[in-house]
């Protein structure tokens, strides 16, 4: 390898390699620089924001923004809602997805292809925002946490990927379980699921990230602000501070004054940190998750 590398080493090639490394290093830096700026800014004092003697890193540090968050009932409440929604939502997602994926993985099941086709069709066509809203309203979910969980209980894409994974499991295992008197439900619980833990973990993470990041469903389904998740409160803080260019009617009186820049950055940090914390776990799995879906069956 080393020899080959030396053999093809024209001056132009060396120049390219140098440029390539520098470019990619700069690109990586730009990809995470905004996070550094926001983290550093969340510790800056209001005075420094006004006078702005710093570019990225402030000169004096204070935890005032975080103390503000801890004292704000509204922000704590929204963090609570986000956590509840993520935990309950992910559990619901996995329950619905796995129970549906397992029967559909059985090729001998009558009606399987009909159901699969109906599932795939929803990936390309939907009733859209208003009819879905009317359905959610008519089943009585409006302003309830269920509105953030049930309408997205299954991602058709995840369902099909998990189904494909179940299909790849050696059929002998299930046959053996059946011989021993296991019915299909017990087989799923005691044989198939323990074997599928990596897949279950991967898709739980994907669903959890989706729940933590979601805001639009809360905007249309949750009328009371006390039930808003963190992402929506953050959007509200930014939109309102933007001179109420957006929905001025929804300015929250309880803020009193507009939130300071430091507080906004601290809220950004709080809503980003969970994602960054599970990122190493995610990274272990996602390449597989992205590519395994390409296998059709």
């Amino acid at each position: 390898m080393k020899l080959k590398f030396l053999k093809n080493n024209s001056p132009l090639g060396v120049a390219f390699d140098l440029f390539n490394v520098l470019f990619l290093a700069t690109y990586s830096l730009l990809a995470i620089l905004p996070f550094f700026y926001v983290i550093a800014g969340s510790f800056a004092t209001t005075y420094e924001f006004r006078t702005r003697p710093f570019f990225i890193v402030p000169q004096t540090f204070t935890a005032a923004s975080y103390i503000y968050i801890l004292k704000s009932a509204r922000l704590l409440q929204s963090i609570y809602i986000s956590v509840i929604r993520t935990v309950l939502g992910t559990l619901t997602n996995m329950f619905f997805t796995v129970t549906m994926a397992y029967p559909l993985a059985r090729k001998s099941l009558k009606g399987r292809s009909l159901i699969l086709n109906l599932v795939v069709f929803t990936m390309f066509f939907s009733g859209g925002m208003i009819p879905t809203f009317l359905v959610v309203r008519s089943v009585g979910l409006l302003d309830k946490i269920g509105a953030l969980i049930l309408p997205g209980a299954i991602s058709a894409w995840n369902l099909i990927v998990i189904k494909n994974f179940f299909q790849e499991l050696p059929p002998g295992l299930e046959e053996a379980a059946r011989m021993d008197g296991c019915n299909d439900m017990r087989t799923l619980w005691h044989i198939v699921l323990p074997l599928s833990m990596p897949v279950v973990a991967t898709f739980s993470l994907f669903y959890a990230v989706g729940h933590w990041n979601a805001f639009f469903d809360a905007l249309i389904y949750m009328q009371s602000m006390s039930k808003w998740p963190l992402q929506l409160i953050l959007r509200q803080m930014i939109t309102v501070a933007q001179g109420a260019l957006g929905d001025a009617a929804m300015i929250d009186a309880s803020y009193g004054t507009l939130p300071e820049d430091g507080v906004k950055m601290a809220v950004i940090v709080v809503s980003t940190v969970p994602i960054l914390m599970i990122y190493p776990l995610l990274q272990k799995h996602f390449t597989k998750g992205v590519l395994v879906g390409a296998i059709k069956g």
Partner: protein
Amino acid sequence: MPIFFLQERRLANILTPATALGKKKPFLVYLIRDRWLYFLLIPGVLYFLVFKYAPMWGLIIAFQDYSPFKGFLKSNWVGLRNFYDFFINPDFLRLLRNTLVMSALNLLFFFPMPIILALMLNELRNFLFKRTVQTIIYIPHFISMVIVYSITYVILSIMGGPVNGLMIKLFGHPIDFLASEAWFRPLILIQLIWKETGWGTIIFLAALAGVDVELYEAAIVDGAGRLRRLIHITLPSIMSTIVVLLILRIGYVLDNGFEQIFLMTNALNHSVADVFDTYVYEVGLRLGAFSYSTAIGMFKAVVGLILIWSTNFLAKKAGQSGIM
């Protein structure tokens, strides 16, 4: 054939066990055999019926003058009036233009980025450096659109944002990027490039990893330099992936990141920002014109479906497996 004969055969079919005749078993047999599997299917099927198919049935309000008090069935039918009203509304052309311009810019400026980045990553020789770069550039994909919007705001703010701090020093005056029509599209593209370029490299890197090393070795023996290897081996090996993604992207030409555009839209830039989905939200949920906005949503969904179907057909023709 005498009629009684026919009846006799039917009777025989009912009385004889299906297996004995080597014919199709009645569905009931399978229902009993796989009863637990069907039981497991119940929650999922109910989910799709209630939250996916009931809304499709709800599309009928696009042909009505829907009134919440009268309900789905008793509202007055108006035929295609809602669609007609939308097509003669000047907003229709504005929305269509915004959508197509955004998609064209997306195709021109965003689409090539992951390809270029993947090719550059592929030229790296230091494995550790390559892994580090990959780890870092995937991160933005998992960050929520609200956070991307919020970070954009704090960086570009005219009150204390670092970019405008620099602008004041250089030009003496700040630029209100977020309230500007001219800056709306560039900002959307920059956000998109920042968030998704790294993630987009995965599919190309996978294709590149599948290239036979012997091809490169043979090319080296034949005296091909790095540029020639790039042109004659690397590029052709990812060409089919590029073509398929390009075709599919055209299938989604009416979808341009609803959440992102929704967040970045405000009273000062909405004339260039509005797209079909944001308009449906505005007119439907905020102004309460359910039937009219449903017609708009339906128009977009049907055209989208036709586009996806036809481009998928093209992708298959291009020798690829397509998405369906």
